[in-house]
């Protein structure tokens, strides 16, 4: 319950930051600090249970039961320690922030900081690996924005930080998933208690490496250390929190948490100790080199975390005790140090050591608290830092592995500690002692108000107090070590352990450090020098650039607007698929009947001629005509195969395609574009491959069964089911009317989009190569007289076409015909009118063709809805209507449906003729009035869209 309260209180705090910010501005930090303090006390109050009796607090709720993920929280000693740090240090930083920032609203800051605290608490309390990961990533996201808050210059560092820590997060995710799948649970404590997976060396090594990557990235360990100083772009309170209690400590927590599983794994020990100590040394050296106090503190964090990682890598209970103590010590001194950097920065206007000096006189309190923190960091008794370092040294000496490994590790630690002493000295001496070195401003710096330095002083004194009363930490550190290693520890923390190796090492570190500080003029001699040729940032940007470049190349693979490329790839894939099938081979049934009749060969020959010619011609007109010939041949084929309606449709469509295509082709040059020979060869190869594939496929995969059950059903039942004897038509308007409905919508939409596209883009003018050369006075020129022949013939044909089309419409259910064929015939009539007209103006067909299309769709849909009277959409209804001359007319709503089809077809043909066939005024897509008057229904559409009138009715232009 406590755990739930804790998280809820935090979440509520996050949610209330906008309000607090609005009411209090920067002072919003006070109530937040109070809340954090309260939570700290709440957590502290759990110590008797969690630390004393070793009973962890637990809470659980289902979240993703499908994969066994729960909202499972658990606070043991380890969790308790980190929660204390998160809330305790959090309270100090929040209080500090109220004075650090200038007095105005800081919405994003408080929101993100509290979110950060929430995420961090969640992280250390999560007892579910998925939940752990969720909070882990939340800290990443929060830190990204916190860094980014500082303005444009911070965006790159923020992004670098995000990507690097997200990479670690992904490693953690991989580890989590591996564990879930392996152990069948996502509960962390169960996984860690399970020894079955830790015995599989390969598996445990993989998981260990993944977790180590997460730890190293989050805790800024070599070679991922660069992000932490990089992130100094963030404001100082952010840095203080990030470095002392949150974010980087997440890595430490993770490493400690997984020690029960990996503690005995030499790979883990070695990895952590070697890289940890390397980081400790490198970070300390770099810290000594800095001029900027904040960067110095940042490299110091890198180094101190190196110590922590390395000692966790040792894996013994004693080592974990040392880790626990040092975690606390570091949290206190590092938060104090950062806060003092902020104090100096604000009060003196700079944090550059080259400008600072002698501040102790004007800022004595700050000087004192900084010195105390630095002393703790340097490992000087009686501060807590001294005790923790003693324990660290002791632990390193007992590092696992070969006998020489412990002493070497110890020596490295001493080296790092010496540098630590040196940079601690540089920090305090450079800023507060000596003489002022800079300009006016910091000479006039004054001490901050108590409310500003008090939080820092608290942290600083905490190190002193705990150092003096260190045995009170015994229970806690023993419990932490127990939780982290699953082995009991029996540590007794003391300031004075007697004369032992660790004390000697401490002395050596201090001595060497003093020597180093003296020889390097407190670091000035080393500062600013490039010790290594490349920086981590450079490597990151190099890799980043590299990936972007590779990405660019990848995009280039398909970066072409030539349809040929995009069309060619699928064809090649099909050929490949066919080749594979051919190689593998199929067991096919025998051919079920005769697949060739003598006459068929005529059509094969005709098709070969037509297609062959269409392929080689360079004339657009010839191309069109020849493809038309191929289309006629298809119609003949359909006729051969007994598909009479289909053949008729194909024929009509072919003609109308030519009619429409001509309207377009005249706007284009006579000849097709030239194509390079190499391309011709390539496309020919692909084409032949595709042709072979199609021919073999068609032969092998079709015609090997008797008529299908469905086909048999239709032939047997159509008259009885539908009252129609034209079985194909009954399928179209009865059985599968839904297909036909879709098809008529497709056709209608084609008409609409032609209008829409022309509305937005317009057509090309007639191509110059197609101009008439004969003069206007030539008797062959005047259209009025010269079209008289076609008009006269048209006058006789038109009624025939209309009659014929109506006849076809009505008889379709029983004999060849139906809505499509009838519509195409009717549409042909309009095409004739268009073609025979002596002028464009007289060719214009003054009908609201979009409305005809719409009416077609509505009529078809209406007949569909009639079907609901009998239980289903598009179910045809039947009635026998008595005829005047006797007998009955079998009426079915399928006929209504067919009327809808008819209308849509006619509407589309009208659209094509009017939109493509008529010339428009130059630069205008408007057409003359008159059209509008025919269409009252379209009038309203322009009312509140003056710029784009006719917005739903393309005819209204």
């Amino acid at each position, binding site marked *: 319950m406590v755990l739930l309260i804790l998280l809820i209180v935090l979440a509520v705090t996050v949610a209330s930051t906008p309000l607090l910010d609005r009411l209090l501005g920067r002072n919003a930090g006070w109530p937040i600090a109070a809340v954090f303090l309260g939570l700290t006390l709440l957590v502290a109050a759990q110590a008797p249970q969690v630390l004393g009796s070793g009973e962890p607090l637990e809470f659980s709720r289902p979240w993703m039961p499908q994969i066994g993920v729960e909202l499972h929280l658990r606070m043991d000693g380890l969790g308790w320690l980190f929660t204390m740090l998160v809330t305790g240090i959090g309270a100090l930083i929040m209080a500090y922030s109220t004075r650090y920032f200038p007095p105005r609203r800081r919405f994003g800051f408080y929101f993100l900081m509290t979110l950060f605290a929430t995420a961090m608490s969640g992280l250390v309390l999560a007892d579910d690996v998925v939940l752990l990961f969720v909070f882990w990533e939340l800290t990443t996201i929060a830190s990204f924005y916190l860094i980014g808050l500082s303005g444009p210059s911070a965006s790159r560092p923020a992004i670098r930080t995000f990507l690097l820590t997200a990479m670690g997060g992904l490693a953690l995710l991989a580890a989590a998933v591996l564990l879930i799948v392996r152990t069948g649970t996502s509960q962390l404590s169960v996984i860690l208690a399970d020894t079955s997976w830790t015995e599989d060396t390969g598996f445990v090594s993989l998981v260990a490496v993944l977790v180590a990557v997460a730890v190293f990235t989050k805790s800024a360990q070599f070679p991922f250390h660069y992000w932490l100083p990089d992130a100094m772009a963030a404001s100082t309170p952010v840095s203080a929190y990030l470095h002392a209690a949150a974010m980087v400590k997440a890595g430490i927590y993770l490493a400690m948490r997984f020690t029960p599983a990996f503690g005995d794994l030499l790979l883990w020990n070695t990895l952590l100790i070697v890289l940890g100590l390397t980081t400790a040394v490198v970070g300390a050296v770099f810290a000594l080199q800095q001029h900027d106090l904040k960067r110095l503190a940042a490299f110091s964090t890198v180094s101190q975390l190196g110590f922590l990682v390395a000692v966790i890598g040792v894996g013994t209970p004693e080592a974990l005790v040392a880790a626990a103590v040092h975690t606390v010590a570091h949290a206190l001194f590092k938060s104090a140090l950062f806060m003092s950097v902020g104090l100096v920065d604000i009060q003196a206007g700079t944090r550059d050591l080259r400008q600072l000096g002698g501040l102790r006189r004007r800022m004595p309190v700050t000087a004192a608290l900084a010195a105390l923190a630095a002393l703790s960091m340097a490992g000087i008794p009686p501060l807590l830092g001294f005790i923790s370092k003693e324990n660290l040294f002791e632990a390193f000496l007992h590092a696992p592995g070969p006998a020489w490994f412990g002493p070497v590790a110890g020596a490295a630690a001493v080296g790092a500690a010496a540098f630590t002493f040196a940079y601690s000295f540089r920090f305090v001496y450079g800023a507060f002692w000596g003489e002022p070195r800079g300009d006016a401003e910091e000479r006039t710096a004054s001490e901050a108000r108590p409310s500003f330095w008090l939080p820092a002083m608290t942290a600083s004194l905490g190190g002193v107090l705990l150092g003096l009363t260190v045995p009170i930490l015994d229970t806690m550190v023993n419990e932490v070590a127990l939780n982290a290693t699953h082995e009991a520890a029996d540590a007794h923390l003391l300031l004075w352990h007697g004369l032992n190796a660790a004390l000697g090492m401490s002395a050596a570190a201090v001595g060497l450090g003093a020597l180093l500080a003296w020889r390097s003029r407190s670091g000035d001699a080393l500062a600013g020098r490039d010790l290594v040729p490349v920086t981590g940032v450079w490597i990151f940007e190099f890799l980043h650039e590299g990936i972007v470049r590779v990405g660019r190349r990848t995009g280039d693979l398909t970066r072409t607007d030539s349809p040929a490329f995009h069309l060619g790839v699928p064809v090649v894939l099909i050929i490949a698929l066919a080749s594979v099938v051919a190689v593998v081979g199929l067991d096919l049934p025998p051919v079920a009947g005769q697949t060739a009749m003598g006459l068929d060969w005529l059509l094969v020959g005709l098709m070969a001629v037509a297609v062959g010619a269409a392929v080689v011609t360079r004339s657009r007109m010839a191309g069109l005509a020849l493809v038309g010939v191929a289309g006629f041949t298809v119609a003949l084929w359909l006729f051969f195969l007994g598909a009479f309606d289909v053949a008729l449709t194909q024929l009509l469509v072919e003609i109308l395609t030519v009619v429409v295509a001509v309207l377009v082709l005249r706007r284009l040059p006579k000849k097709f574009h030239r194509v390079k020979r190499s391309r011709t060869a390539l496309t020919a190869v692909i084409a032949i491959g595709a042709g072979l594939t199609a021919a073999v496929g068609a032969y092998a995969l079709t015609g090997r069964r008797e008529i299908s059950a469905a086909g048999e059903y239709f032939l047997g039942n159509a008259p009885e089911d539908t009252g129609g004897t034209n079985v194909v038509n009954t399928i179209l308007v009865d059985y599968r009317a839904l297909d036909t409905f879709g098809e008529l919508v497709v056709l209608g939409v084609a008409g609409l989009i032609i209008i829409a596209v022309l509305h937005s883009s317009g057509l090309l003018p007639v191509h110059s190569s197609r101009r008439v050369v004969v003069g206007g006075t030539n008797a062959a020129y005047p259209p009025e007289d010269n079209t008289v022949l076609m008009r006269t013939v048209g006058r006789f*044909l038109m009624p025939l076409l209309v009659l014929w089309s109506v006849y076809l419409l009505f008889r379709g259910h029983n004999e060849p015909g139906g809505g499509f064929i009838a519509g195409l015939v009717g549409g042909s009539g309009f095409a004739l009118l268009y073609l025979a007209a002596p002028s464009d103006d007289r060719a214009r067909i003054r009908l609201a063709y979009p409305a005809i299309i719409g009416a077609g769709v509505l009529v078809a849909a209406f007949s569909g809805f009639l079907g609901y009277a009998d239980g289903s959409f598009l179910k045809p209804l039947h009635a026998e209507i008595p005829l005047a001359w006797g007998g009955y007319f079998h009426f079915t709503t399928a006929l209504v449906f067919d009327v809808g089809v008819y209308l849509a077809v006619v509407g589309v043909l009208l659209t094509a003729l009017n939109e493509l066939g008529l010339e428009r005024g130059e630069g205008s897509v408007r057409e003359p009035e008159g059209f509008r008057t025919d269409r009252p229904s379209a009038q309203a559409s322009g009312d509140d869209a003056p710029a784009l009138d006719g917005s739903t009715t393309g005819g209204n232009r």
Partner: protein
Amino acid sequence: MNALDVAGIVCMTAGALVFLVGSIGLLRLQDFYARLSGVSIAGALGTALLLLGLLLHYPTVDNAIKIGLALLIQLATAAVGGNAIARAGYLVGVKPTEKTQFDDLAATEKDG
């Protein structure tokens, strides 16, 4: 096979051959305007014979009307189509053969 059938086959075969000769005309005749004669051989006589053959095979009143109508339409439209293409060719300046004796149409232009 009755007499009508035989007549039908004869008609059709003859029509097909006429048709073939017409299209050979497309190859052999000298200029565009001459080749239009090939078109009308195929479109008029050729098609007419073929339709007649069909009628002889299915000699019903119904078919007589339909085929008669079809023939009428075919002849009318073939003629108008031929005219349209001839005029189109003339308008875009398709050159007649050198042998052409005179061109009254071109003269109308000069007069104009």
